[in-house]
């Protein structure tokens, strides 16, 4: 298993930071806190964090400049930007400055947690697997084929990408917005439960004729694909 993740929260709202630290601790993630841009930059440069959670508007040095400066120094710790500005272009500028993910405020903690976990894992293992496996489910990224118990399951291209993303992050929660962003590459609010319907279709295809469920709905958060028998 992955070692305990250690992250740095750069956030000037002390109450919010304390709440985040507590929530992350409960999720098994250790966090440090910096309350302004300069000390955040210093701490991020001196320590080896798995993920940085950076508020965009900070005293002494704004969030984007912290990220730019870190990247200039050759520090490539994954960064998640938190911002009260939630618009399309703020995301673009944030990611352009060197951020890896962007979450507009107010956010659900589950959303933040899911994203931080995905970012933290991305750091450790470069994604080179050609075949993803979860239990008896197998996804071949080269031939674009999916098998369960050796039996081919035909999927639509989008369903394949959906399953691919879920399996790439197997054992981790992925939220609906993460799916929309990564599978459809859109960041807008689809108003209805479009993602749920897509997931349930995919689920019926990969689980219909089999006993063991793999794709689980995590209440209030999103989805996770996991083989319960494999992990103790």
């Amino acid at each position, binding site marked *: 298993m992955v070692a305990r993740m250690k992250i740095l929260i750069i956030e000037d709202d002390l109450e919010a930071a304390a709440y985040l630290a507590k929530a992350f601790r409960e999720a098994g993630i250790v966090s440090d806190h910096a309350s302004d841009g300069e000390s955040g930059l210093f701490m991020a440069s001196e320590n080896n964090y798995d993920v940085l959670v950076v508020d965009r508007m900070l005293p002494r040095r704004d969030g984007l400049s912290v990220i730019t400066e870190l990247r200039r120094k050759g520090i490539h710790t994954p960064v998640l930007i938190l911002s009260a500005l939630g*618009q*399309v272009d703020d995301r673009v500028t944030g990611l352009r400055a060197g951020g890896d993910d962007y979450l507009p405020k107010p956010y659900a903690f589950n959303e933040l947690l899911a994203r931080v976990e995905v970012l933290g894992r991305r750091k450790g293992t470069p994604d080179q697997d050609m075949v993803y496996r979860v239990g008896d489910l197998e996804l071949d990224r080269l031939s674009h084929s999916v098998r369960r118990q050796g039996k081919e399951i035909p999927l639509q291209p989008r369903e394949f990408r959906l399953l691919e993303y879920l399996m790439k992050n197997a054992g981790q929660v992925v939220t609906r917005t993460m799916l929309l962003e990564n599978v459809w590459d859109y960041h*807008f609010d689809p108003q209805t439960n479009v993602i749920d*319907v897509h997931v349930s279709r995919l689920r019926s295809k990969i689980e219909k004729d089999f006993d063991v469920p793999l794709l689980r709905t995590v209440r209030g958060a999103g989805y996770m694909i996991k083989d319960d028998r494999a992990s103790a």
Partner: protein
Amino acid sequence: MSKLRVLFRTTAVRLSALYLILFSLCAAFLVFYVTGMSERLLQQQTRDAVTAEVAQIEQVYSRAGMNGLLRSLERRARQPGANLYVIAGPSGEILAGNVASLEPGLLDSEGWTERPFAYQRYTDENKKDSHVALAHVLVLDNGLRILVGRDLQEPQKFRALVRQALMVALGVMGLGALVIWFGIGRNALKRIDRMSEASTKIMAGDLSQRLPMSGSGDEFDRLSESLNAMLSRIEKLNEGLRQVSDNIAHDLKTPLTRLRNKAEAALARKGTSQRGALEEIIGESDQLIRTFNALLMISRVEAGSSVAEMSEIDLSQIVADCVELYEPVAEDAGLKLEADIAQNLAISGNRELVGQALGNLIDNAIKYAEGADNPLIRVSLEKLDGHVVLAVADHGSGIPEAMHDEVVKRFVRLDESRSKPGTGLGLSLVEAVMEMHHGSLRLADTVPSAEDGGKGLTVQMVFPMTAT
């Protein structure tokens, strides 16, 4: 008086005054130049005439001697309007001629008199009358002096006349210009006054006021026109803002009240698990956040296109993506989402915003067509009359035509849709997005004649074609 001072401060009058001064200087120069030139010309003529006569007289003298000369001079002197002829003795006493007296010492030296001189004629009754003439003095070999001169009265009169005429003409022109400029200045001032009067009213809060236009299409009208266009825009934005704050107060209060009620109810439920209530509360807050986000997005989009990045986007792909995204939801609702997409239609736009707008339209269609007799929702993308038209047509209950403008406004929801989930902001956002893309949003009935009851709604996003 102060009014005159204000008038003088106008640009028109100041410029006019400057022009007037320049004009006067030029005119004065012109007067002096023209009179000077004409004087010189006349004097030259006089001299030429006198020189010619002197030459003739010399000739007569050398041919016919003194007698011939006297006869010739007598004849000449008797002609009407004759020149001046004087024969004088060596000491200067006048012996013969048509001149009564001369300035003394004039006959002393031979050649041209240095300057015009005064003389009197025999015909002058009043001895004080004197004439001015220019003359040439000839000294004969016998010591007699002969003066041939020409009166300068005529040229002088002519010169005075020219000068007077010029002065009068310039005076009239200057006066005319002054009057015209005064009129222009006053007119300009009056119009400016009217404009500032109107803007004072506008500043006082009456944004419906407009600057006056004379209808002449001149520069003032053009200025008024563009200022009025600006005012309309401001008024619209202001109106939108006012409406939003009104609606925020009203429409956000409802979910906030629900939220509070739920929290209260959960609190009252002693001891038991509050998990379900908390989840509901989170759900309510999410809906609130969603509404806020939509509001913010609309105002950001409306604030101007500079906010959002525009690039060449493949509209066909976006439409295909959206249809694919919503297709399962439509199917679950018992509807059929059908796509008719012209390939490779690119426009200049923002992918996310166009995607969101189309998403809103499809989501609306699914919401309001659910349970309709005809389950078809048709999403089409095509080129039409130089535009790119993206349409979502459903066969739901439709919207009465009178309400078409109304439903685009923020938070406006028709009574029958109040029960459905939604923020009431979907179409407002679509309209803002279309405005940002220099396009328009059109609502129409899917089935023009409402024979079969449900006539449906077609919403068109009309984009301008990108010039390629």
